């Protein structure tokens, strides 16, 4: 249940309480996060789709050594399937229009994270590296227990943080390619105009890889977790109780995480 936010249940110090063992719904994803997430999804894919039309016109990147290419971005079949050929101008028009929406949505999200201090739930702490390894082992069924976690587990914290950094870098490198003179010396940050183009492309691939893992983990985590990104709530069997000191003021007793029954997934 590594990606499943349900296991972040039995939160500390909730004022409302329900009778023990009655299912209750607890808010995990505030409305702003849900809207920003779902608005970002199509915007990101419009950006990638139009960006690939732009990349197509000079598709020079490949993995390989010297003249030997192991994998060239992209095989012709990809272009044919996505009908990307010869639409550079159209790609640019979409990219430079929807780019504003992508940036605005991302900026609102960044402000939201800072203003609500929600970033603290995402940023990895000093235990994250070790715990993330255990999460991965657990997810691969090589370990029976998952490490303790807050709203997100350590692997999530690391990947979400990396994604946010990549999103920031993709916007920055994008502007460096878009207006290299007007925003000079921004391109120098990436080693110049061509460096910025490479970074911009690499970040795109990185975001696509994240997306693949994200989908797999969402599928693994089940309906309750997916629903929480739409409704905001997860359903828990027990009322939130306090495990942290000082002792819980509620009469529900100090329920441990293992008491927490997930009825939603």
């Amino acid at each position: 249940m590594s990606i499943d936010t349900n296991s972040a249940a039995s939160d500390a110090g909730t004022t409302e309480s329900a009778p023990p063992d009655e299912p209750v719904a607890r808010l995990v994803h505030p409305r702003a996060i849900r809207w920003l997430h779902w608005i970002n999804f199509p915007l990101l894919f419009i950006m990638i789709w139009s960006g690939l039309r732009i990349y197509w016109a000079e598709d020079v990147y490949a993995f390989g050594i010297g003249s030997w290419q192991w994998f060239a971005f992209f095989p012709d079949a990809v272009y044919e399937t996505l009908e990307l050929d010869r639409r550079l101008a159209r790609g640019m028009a979409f990219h430079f229009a929807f780019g504003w929406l992508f940036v605005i949505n991302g900026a609102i999200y960044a402000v939201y994270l800072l203003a609500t201090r929600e970033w603290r739930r995402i940023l990895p702490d000093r235990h994250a590296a070790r715990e993330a390894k255990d999460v991965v082992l657990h997810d691969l069924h090589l370990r029976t227990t998952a490490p303790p976690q807050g709203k997100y587990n350590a692997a999530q914290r690391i990947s979400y943080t990396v994604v946010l950094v990549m999103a920031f870098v993709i916007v920055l490198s994008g502007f460096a390619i878009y207006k290299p003179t007007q925003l000079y010396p921004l391109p120098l940050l990436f080693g110049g105009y061509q460096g910025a183009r490479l970074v911009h492309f690499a970040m795109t691939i990185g975001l696509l890889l994240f997306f693949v893992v994200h989908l797999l983990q969402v599928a693994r985590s089940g309906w309750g977790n997916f629903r929480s990104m739409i409704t905001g709530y997860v359903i828990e069997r027990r009322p939130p109780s306090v495990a942290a000191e000082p002792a819980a003021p509620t009469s529900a007793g100090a329920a441990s995480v293992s008491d927490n029954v997930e009825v939603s997934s």
Partner: protein
Amino acid sequence: MNDDRTDPSDRERELRARLDDAPTIPVEEFRKRSRRSFLTGAAGLGAAYVGWQWLQDQPDVAGIPKPLRDTLKFNEDVWRTVSESRSAPEHPISKATPIQVNGRIGIRNEIDLADWTVRVEGPDGEVLDELDISTFEALPQRDMVIEHKCIEGWSSIVHWGGTRFSDFHARYADRVGDVPYVSLETPDGLYYVGWDMPSIMHPQTMLALRQGTEPLDQDHGAPLRLATPNKYGIKCLKRIGVIRYARERPADYWAERSYDWHAGL
């Protein structure tokens, strides 16, 4: 192991203590809100689909849907306001490489350079001058080593030699007055570009006669072409045959074929 390793239950408390109060609601209330959220989501999905279709169905303006064309104009105005007059970095001559030949429209046939002249026209179609190359050789010469950027994505550092357009324009400034645009054409009229006055008067907009120290090849626009690091190569017309001052935004070969008219960097 290291000191960071704490007892899992302590760690668990620590993580929980860091979570803020998360509101809970009864399950009946959740069902109501959940239904509302899914309906909102469905409506949003529908709206996104309708909006996307609407955009595709808008009448094309020069090859792209009108809202996108309007956005390109909006972007042009934004960047003009932000920092129109900035300059691109210039490089040491040692960094320069020969530029590849990309566009041949308007220069497919070789011409006799001895017969070449450029016609200078005023905004009312009056012929101001018919000049041979000696006029341009007599204007103040400068060298410029800049990164030439192709709209397809490649770029190369090129050493151009020639005269600033602004130095050429000084000959006609009094006669044409405050004209907002300049149009340039190849002698056969097959390729043509439009420039706004601030862009073409930029100190890095050059009427180039030389690549490196050699006169231009015919493939690169001999005997006279435009060069700049501040717009895509599509604006750097080769083999200039006509220079025409204009009161209206002039036609532009690639802008008629879906690309941005301004094409500024």
